[in-house]
């Protein structure tokens, strides 16, 4: 009975509008976040001008880099922020813009847009000269994806602005916190971000080590599978709940509940077949999408002559993403069966929001905690993954187990409802009727 019901549920899902909307969002999410800009890391060669950058902890460097960014954004009049992990373009009203100008003046001694423009101009000229001096020397393809502005190879050096004389690091931090607040958070100037601004060049050894780890420990695909999970997880932390809620409401909307309730099929079979169908139908498009980065990896591996882990995307999809699909779908099913409303969308939505917001601080990976949507927004940092693996495994197991428990509870509620008990909605309606 379970197998045949499962097949029928899958077919029903494949014919539902909401399912295809979810698939469309997944495709959209994949192409915008990952599909177009995923470049495979190339092996660094010695003797290059740059191997990309890594964060410095030197206050002087942090200050000059951060003020450089502030000068540039202030001059352009628009700011890039990631308030909950998503890209946002911020423009300020007159008053706020004026206050940023004051901050810049106090921190860097730059007065007004005009002076900021002049500083920008000087820097731009210097860059062009640098580039001409180098021309013929370094070819574009020698630039790795770690290089600053890899897509925009005009600039060899980021804009750096020396802090005003006598500015302490404490006062600098206060001013930047204020700027971040004006910009609504998630800007380059908040504490965590500004400490990442101070990028210093990696040495050839640093870059080589990072690359070797990716190839040797991760078989290349491992790193990209994590990156894939990082992006897809953002969507899969919320979308399954919509499928679960619409499925849960469909019987009532079709006035079909009693026809199903009075049949012999055990409640657990009914609920399990629906649940399994949801999971399978959601995992399928994810696996299908993972073929694209896998193909890219294989393509690169062939030219670079390395062997890759062919199953990495499958393993990561099941280990990392499936528990997320399971819990979101199970919570959706449970709350819909319990309340006969779409309340699950609100609950899961709130949880997802908190997860994404909280995850912004852990984008580099390794700090998975109990986050519903663990982050690891880089193909590198295998070490972080390795160190955080035990926690990640616990995290994923917890959610998968909770999902199974919720499914069992849903089956229990279903069995009670078909006997005429636990009719929360029925009670509400009856009260309304008896009053009118």
């Amino acid at each position, binding site marked *: *009975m379970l197998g*045949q*019901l499962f097949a*029928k549920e899958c077919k*029903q899902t494949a*014919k539902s509008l909401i399912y295809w909307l979810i698939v469309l969002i997944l495709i959209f999410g994949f192409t915008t976040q990952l599909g177009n800009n995923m470049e495979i890391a190339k092996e660094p060669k010695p003797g290059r001008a740059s191997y990309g950058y890594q964060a410095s902890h030197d206050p002087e460097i942090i200050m000059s880099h951060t003020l450089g960014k502030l000068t540039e954004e202030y001059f352009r009049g628009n700011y890039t922020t990631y308030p909950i992990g998503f890209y946002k373009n911020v423009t300020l009203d007159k008053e706020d813009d004026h206050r940023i100008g004051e901050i810049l003046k106090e921190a860097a001694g730059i007065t007004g847009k005009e002076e900021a423009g002049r500083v920008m101009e000087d820097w731009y000229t210097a860059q062009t000269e640098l580039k001409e001096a180098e021309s013929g020397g370094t070819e574009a393809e020698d630039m790795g994806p770690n290089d600053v502005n890899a897509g925009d190879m005009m600039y060899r050096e980021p804009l750096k602005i020396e802090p005003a004389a006598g500015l302490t690091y404490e006062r600098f931090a206060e001013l930047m916190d204020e700027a971040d607040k004006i910009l609504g958070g998630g800007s380059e100037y908040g504490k965590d971000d500004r400490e990442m601004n101070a990028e210093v060049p990696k040495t050839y050894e640093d870059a080589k080590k990072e690359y070797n780890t990716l190839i040797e420990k991760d078989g290349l695909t491992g790193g990209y599978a994590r990156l894939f999970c990082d992006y897809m997880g953002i969507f899969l932390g919320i979308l399954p709940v919509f499928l679960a809620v619409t499925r849960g409401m*469909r019987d009532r909307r*079709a*006035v*079909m509940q*009693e*026809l*199903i*309730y*009075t*049949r*012999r*099929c*055990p409640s657990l079979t*009914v609920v399990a077949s629906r649940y399994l169908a949801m999971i399978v139908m959601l995992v399928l498009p994810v696996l299908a999408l993972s073929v694209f980065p896998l193909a890219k990896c294989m393509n690169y591996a062939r030219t670079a002559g390395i062997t890759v882990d062919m199953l990495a995307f499958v393993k990561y999809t099941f280990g990392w993403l499936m528990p997320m699909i399971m819990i979101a779908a199970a919570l959706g099913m449970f709350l819909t069966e319990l309340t006969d409303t779409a309340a699950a969308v609100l609950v899961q939505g709130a949880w997802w929001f908190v997860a994404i917001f909280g995850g912004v601080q852990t984008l580099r990976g390794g700090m998975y905690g109990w986050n519903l949507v663990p982050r690891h927004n880089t193909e590198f940092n295998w070490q972080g993954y390795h160190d955080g693996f035990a926690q990640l495994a616990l995290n994923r197991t917890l959610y998968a187990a909770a999902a199974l428990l919720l499914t069992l509870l849903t089956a229990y509620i279903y069995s009670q409802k*078909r*006997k*005429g*008990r636990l009719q929360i909605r029925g009670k509400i309606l*009856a009260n309304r009727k*008896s009053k009118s």
Partner: protein
Amino acid sequence: MSTTIEIRNLNQYYGRKQALRDINLTIETGMFGLLGRNGAGKTTLMKVIATLLPRSEGEVSVCGRSTLRPQEVRKIVGYLPQDFSMYPNMTVYEAMDYLGVLSGLSRAKRRQRIPRLLQRVNLQDDKRKKVKALSGGMKRRLGIAQAILHNPKVLIVDEPTAGLDPEERVRFRNLLCEIAEERIVILSTHIVGDIEATCEDIAVLDEGSVIYQGTVTDLIAMTEGKVYTAEISKRELEALKKDYIVTSMLTLGNNVMARFLAEERPFASAKLCEAGVEDAYMYLMHAERGELGC
């Protein structure tokens, strides 16, 4: 093995409201009619038998299986609710197939039974139609087909004739009579004509109590000698209505031919006539409430 439905001392409550009062009924193979006005408790009683409501007090057993073990009862009961539909985007055949799986029928069984049943309810040419494209009558027939899909010993149909046109109604009754040859069919209705045409045994429910149980013939016999007709003027009709229960009337020019209930001949021009189910039902309802004129 028992082939009857036994209901003993059944009381049913919705919160504090009592919907059924001390019901005792034995229902045997064949058509069983459940008659009563709206709100009498027919649907409630049927839902208890179909295990859709937990019985509050008393005992209900269906062919020897207690409704305390719903999974056993569900195997042998087919139910057609008063209001129902199916997934609108499924075809007639798909909907039947889906419900067939839920009834535990194998693929082979479903392939064999579904076309036969669709034929029986005269939907064989509509099996590829979407459920949302069916008319009210077609939907009812599909409802019957799904309810007997697993060949249940008991078929429960709640007000199936409501909303059907007269021709459909007659055909529907005949279909139910055929089905009742092999099993118990419980039919509820608030339309007396349905019962008259199809049922031998009936129970009349009023405000949650059974006020009559027996055959239709006996019900009519109770009213024998108490039904009169008289041709009277319209003014006299008002007076008559105050004292007697008028079960029907027919306007004849300035006069009215009234049919009414009386314990004995009320005036000379009144003519005694043969009682019908309608008269008997009206008699019963008013006798129960102590409103009968004398």
